[in-house]
């Protein structure tokens, strides 16, 4: 009898020993804290909002904030930055140095006199943090500086009082989804005491189909009229991103968590290329005439990322960075907004072709969209007070507002910051959400693009 259990017992003990050894080597080893050494003290970051557009006859103030890298895990992270901006009037060859002066609130600033600003100017800043570390913004300096365009004439538009609650209903709803993982759903990353992150972005392909970035489920969802939505699995790292579809149907997906990365996919969802962005923060990818461009921080420049299978290197992106978004016809769209006013312009080279200044009694929020439309722009801008919000859609013509309407925010779940709207043909598309799910709504803009 003893012989009948002796061998199974020996096997059981041997198996247990093998299992314990396996767990010790693999699980416990993986559980051991692997803490890379803290990075060397960094410069930190230079913060700046480019003015981009300036009234002729007025001086232009350039202000910079400096975030000091902390040395070690202890207080005392302050630093005493100093530096200069280098300014070159449009048409001139050399840059002129203007010292940055300390301002209240820890800002550094310099004033470009009206006479120097009247033709527009290029500029960049070089700042030392007082610890022997320096930073240039934009990073390529004189090779790809920021730019300010002169506003000699512009059309002032009074957007009027907000109509919180009086929204135009959509012309149609292209697709509606619940939250989840199935074929009829879009992913929602949420939970108790946590952000509600839905699909980050969408765009309209040249064939009129809508492509939604369902990054929570690591897939693209394509909506075609009269057909069931199709799902295209993609690689996606991180929690949020943006998406644009090029004129040839190539799909560009921007990952913004961690180090920003731009991936491209064929219309069928096959991976084409992937490459990192030069700047540490990015919020928008758009399809430009020469390939994808990415709006990045802290430069607030548009970085070309490479339109073919070979993404541009970081150095190439920085050297080719543009202060405004290039669109068709050799034009660029320039946006500079504050709570009190939204300035918009179509420019060509150093010349301002057409400009508008939006004003009104309510606070302006972000400019969600500004796209060439006819001989003007179609613009979507948020109006808000402490308890309400709406999106105002404006079709701007050279003489003022050609038409306007108001759209409900529909922002129960977060999208990418500036990816709630897209224009295709004469139609405005909106990615909107509520507790029960998300949908793509359309609105006829009127006029002709």
């Amino acid at each position, binding site marked *: 009898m003893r012989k*009948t*259990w*002796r*061998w*199974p017992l*020996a*096997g*059981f003990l041997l*198996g*247990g020993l*093998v*299992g314990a050894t*396996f*767990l010790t080597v693999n699980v416990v080893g993986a*559980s051991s*804290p*692997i*803490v*890379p050494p*803290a*990075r060397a003290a960094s410069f930190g970051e230079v*913060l700046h909002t480019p003015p981009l557009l300036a009234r002729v006859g007025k001086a232009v103030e350039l202000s910079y*904030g400096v*975030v000091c*890298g*902390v040395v070690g*895990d202890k*207080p005392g*992270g*302050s630093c005493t930055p100093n530096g200069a901006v280098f300014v070159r009037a449009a048409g001139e060859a050399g840059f002129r140095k203007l010292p940055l002066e300390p301002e209240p609130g*820890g800002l550094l600033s310099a004033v470009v006199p009206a006479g120097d600003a009247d033709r527009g100017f290029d500029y960049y800043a070089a700042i030392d943090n007082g610890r022997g570390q320096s930073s240039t913004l934009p990073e390529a300096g004189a090779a790809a500086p920021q730019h300010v365009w002169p506003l000699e004439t512009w059309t002032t538009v009074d957007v009027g009082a907000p109509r919180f609650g009086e929204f135009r209903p959509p012309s149609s709803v292209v697709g509606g989804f619940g939250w989840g993982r199935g074929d009829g759903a879009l992913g929602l*990353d*949420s*939970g108790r*005491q*946590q*952000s*509600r*992150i839905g699909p980050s972005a969408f765009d309209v392909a040249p064939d009129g189909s809508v492509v939604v970035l369902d990054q929570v489920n690591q897939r693209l969802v394509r909506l075609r009229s009269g057909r069931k939505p199709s799902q295209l699995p993609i690689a996606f790292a*991180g*929690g*949020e991103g943006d998406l644009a579809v090029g004129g040839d149907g190539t799909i560009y997906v921007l990952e913004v*968590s961690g180090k920003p990365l731009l991936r491209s996919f064929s219309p069928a969802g096959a991976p084409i290329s992937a490459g990192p962005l030069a700047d540490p*923060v990015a*919020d928008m990818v758009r399809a430009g005439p020469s390939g994808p461009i990415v709006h990045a921080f802290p430069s*607030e420049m548009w970085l070309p990322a490479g339109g073919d299978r070979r993404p541009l290197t970081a150095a190439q992106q920085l050297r080719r960075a543009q202060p405004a978004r290039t669109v068709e016809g050799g034009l660029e769209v320039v*946006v*500079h*907004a504050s*709570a009190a006013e939204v300035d918009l312009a179509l420019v060509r080279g150093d010349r301002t072709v057409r400009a508008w200044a939006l004003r009104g009694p309510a*606070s302006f*929020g*972000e400019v969600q969209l500004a796209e060439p439309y006819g001989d003007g722009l179609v613009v979507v801008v948020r*109006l*808000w007070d*402490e308890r309400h*919000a709406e999106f105002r859609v404006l079709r701007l013509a050279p003489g003022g507002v050609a038409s306007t309407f108001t759209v409900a925010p529909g*922002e129960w779940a977060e999208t990418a*910051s*500036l990816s709630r709207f897209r224009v295709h043909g004469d139609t405005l598309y909106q990615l909107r959400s509520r507790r029960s799910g998300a949908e793509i709504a359309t609105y006829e803009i009127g006029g002709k693009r």
Partner: protein
Amino acid sequence: MRRGLGTGLVGGLATVLLAVGTPAGAYHTHFKSTCTSGYFNDNPVTRSAARNYAYVAAAEGYQWGGGCWNDNNTDDSPGDPTQDPNTNGEGPDCSGLTFKSWWERSETGDPWFRYHSAMQNTHGPYTAADFKYGTGAPNVTVAKANTVYMDAFASTYHVGMIYWANTAFNQDRIIEAKCEACGSGTWPRTYRGNPDYSGARRLYWSG
């Protein structure tokens, strides 16, 4: 004999892997075991110092209910199961980052400042909703239109601090711990105009 040995081998292996391997595998980085308990009271503190402190957390991880992070610009515990503080990963959550970056104290009736080491594992007593409603002696509400850098926008489910106000498109760059897949960072956001969010402020900055 061989059949008995083999049966026992399989049984023993399965027993150990199921009994020990399953729970052990769920906690895979144990970043938290490297955290410290370092803190001290400090005064005065400026908004600028608070922003410098918060900046260290940018590009680090996110841990729901968590509170310690290092400075290597890497999420050292990516992909943890969400909504579980026992995953012991790197990073703060949104309210934990705000609490530590605002140099607040765990005693909710005490409005003064306390330096918390980045590697100190503390979350603080406040939720996002607490910041939204100005709960606690150091915290008040403020009109969103009047906010300045290192004030916060808070909803009942999320809170983030103003890192740099008013970008060219009129967003705000927010420093925040966003989600497990997002980590922590300084992203442009539109919380200011979103009715879910209210303005929140820490009192008694010295500048």
